[in-house]
C-alpha cells in the first residue's frame, strides 16, 4: 500500500487542435484533443495536461471549450498551462473544469502572481512550470538557470533556488522541463530532476526528453520525480500508457495499473 507514481501525457494545443504530429490509427480526427484525451483516459493516464500554444489572444477561448468538453467525460485531474497571466485566466480554466493551472513566464515576470493565485484558489491547483537549462561548464559544479520563450531567453535565475522560492510562494507542484533535453529523445536531465526534487517539499513532475519507456522509469528511480510527463512517445502511438505503466511497474515502481 503506497502512493503511486504518475504518468501524465501532455497535449500541445494550437487553436483547439493537437499539434506535434499525432498519428493515432483508430481515431477519426487525429488532431482532436477531446478524442485523444478520451483515449489516454481509457489507457490509464493518471492525469492529463494541456499546453495551450495558441499565439493570438483572440483564439484563447478555444482551449476553454476543449477543457469543458474533456471535463464532462474524463474524470481524472486536468491541468492547463500556456498563457496563464491573470487571476481571471485561472478562474476561467477552473470554471471550465480544469483542476490545476500551470504558470510559467508570468511567474518569472511577477513572482507575486503565484502568491496571489495560491491564496485565492489554493496551492493544490497552482503548478509552477519552470524551463531550466544547464549553464555550467563541464569542469564546474552543475548549475541550471531558468529560461523563458521556449528556451530562447535567459533570465539569470538559478533553478534550484527558484523552485524553492516558488514553493514558498504557494506552488503546490513543480513541472520541471529541461530545455537541453526537450525534443531530443535522450531522456530526462536526471541530475537536474533529482536536484530539484530533493530541494522542495512538493511533488515534482519531470519533463523533456523522453524517447523510451526506460527514460520514464529512470526519471522516478534516479531523478526522484513524483510524476513523469511525456508527449511524443504517446502521440505517435509508439507505446500506450498502459505499456508504459507496466514497464515502470516491472522496474519496481508503484503504479496504478
Amino acid at each position, binding site marked *: 500500500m*503506497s*502512493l503511486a507514481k504518475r504518468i501524465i501525457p501532455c497535449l500541445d494545443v494550437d487553436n483547439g487542435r493537437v499539434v506535434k504530429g499525432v498519428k493515432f490509427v483508430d481515431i477519426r480526427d487525429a488532431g482532436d484533443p477531446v478524442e485523444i484525451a478520451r483515449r489516454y483516459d481509457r489507457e490509464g493516464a*493518471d492525469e492529463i495536461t494541456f499546453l495551450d500554444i495558441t499565439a493570438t489572444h483572440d483564439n484563447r477561448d478555444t482551449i476553454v471549450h476543449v477543457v469543458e468538453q474533456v471535463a464532462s467525460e474524463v*474524470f481524472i485531474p486536468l491541468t492547463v498551462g500556456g498563457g496563464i497571466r491573470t487571476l481571471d485566466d485561472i478562474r476561467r480554466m*477552473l470554471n471550465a473544469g480544469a*483542476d490545476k493551472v500551470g504558470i510559467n513566464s508570468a511567474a518569472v515576470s511577477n513572482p507575486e502572481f503565484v502568491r496571489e493565485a495560491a491564496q485565492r484558489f*489554493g496551492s*493544490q491547483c497552482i503548478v509552477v512550470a519552470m524551463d531550466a537549462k544547464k549553464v555550467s561548464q563541464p569542469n564546474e559544479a552543475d548549475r541550471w538557470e531558468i529560461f523563458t520563450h521556449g528556451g530562447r531567453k535567459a533570465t539569470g535565475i538559478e533553478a534550484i533556488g527558484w523552485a524553492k522560492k516558488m514553493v514558498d510562494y504557494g506552488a503546490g507542484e513543480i513541472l520541471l522541463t529541461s530545455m537541453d533535453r526537450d525534443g531530443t529523445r535522450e531522456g530526462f536531465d536526471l541530475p537536474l530532476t533529482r536536484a530539484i526534487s530533493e530541494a522542495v*517539499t*512538493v511533488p515534482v513532475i519531470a519533463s523533456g526528453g523522453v524517447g523510451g519507456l526506460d527514460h520514464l522509469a529512470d526519471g522516478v528511480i534516479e531523478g526522484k520525480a513524483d510524476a513523469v510527463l511525456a508527449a511524443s512517445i504517446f502521440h505517435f502511438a509508439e507505446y500506450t500508457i498502459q505499456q508504459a505503466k507496466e514497464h515502470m511497474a516491472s522496474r519496481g515502481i508503484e503504479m496504478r495499473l
Partner: protein
Amino acid sequence: MSSVAVIDYGMGNLHSIAKALQHAAPEVDVQIVADPDVILQADRVVFPGVGAIRDCMQALNQSGLSAVIRKVAKTKPLLGICLGMQALLTDSEENGSTQGLGIISGHVVHFSEPLTDHHGNHLKVPHMGWNQVRQMPHPLWRNIPQDSRFYFVHSYYAIPDDRSVVAATTEYPEAFSCALAQDNIFAVQFHPEKSQAVGLQLLNNFLHWDGQV
C-alpha cells in the same frame, strides 16, 4: 426524479463535482446551489471544498450555510469531499487553529514534516496522486474492489475521536482515516470526482443511498 444539491459557498471546483455526479447517474437532477431552501429540499447533499479551512469556515458562517449543513447532517444523505470532510470535524490546526462544524467529533492535523517512508525515502507534502483505500464495510463501497486507488491532494487529515466512524484508511506512510461514516453522513478525503471509474461508482452509490448503514 431524485435530486442532489452541491453546496455553493464560493469555494472549490463545483463544476467538476457536478459533472461527475451527472455522469455517474444521468437520471438524477444535479444542482449547484447556495439557497438554503433549495439545499434543504434536495434528496441528497454534497459538501465539497478545496483551499484553506479558515476561508471555508468564514464563507459558511457568513452565508448562514453552516446551520444548513448541520440540519442536513441530521436528516438526509450527506457526502463531504476533501475540505468538505475536514470542515465536518471539531477543529483543524490549519491557519493557527480553526473551529470546524463539529458534526463529527475529532481533529484535523498536518502531515508531520519531514515525512519519510519505511525505507527512509523523503515523502512529499501535499500527499498528491493515486493511493490505495482500505475499506471497512459500508454501502458506499458497493462494487468497488478492496484497495482500489483514488486521487488525493491534501496536506491535512482527520483524526476522529471515535474510531468506529472510520470507513476507510490509506497509508502515507502511516495509516490515516481517508473516509468517515456517521449515520447518514459519509465523508472522504480523496476526490471521487477525479478518481475515474471507482470514483464514479462511489458517487453512483451515494446517489442511490438511503442514508442507512
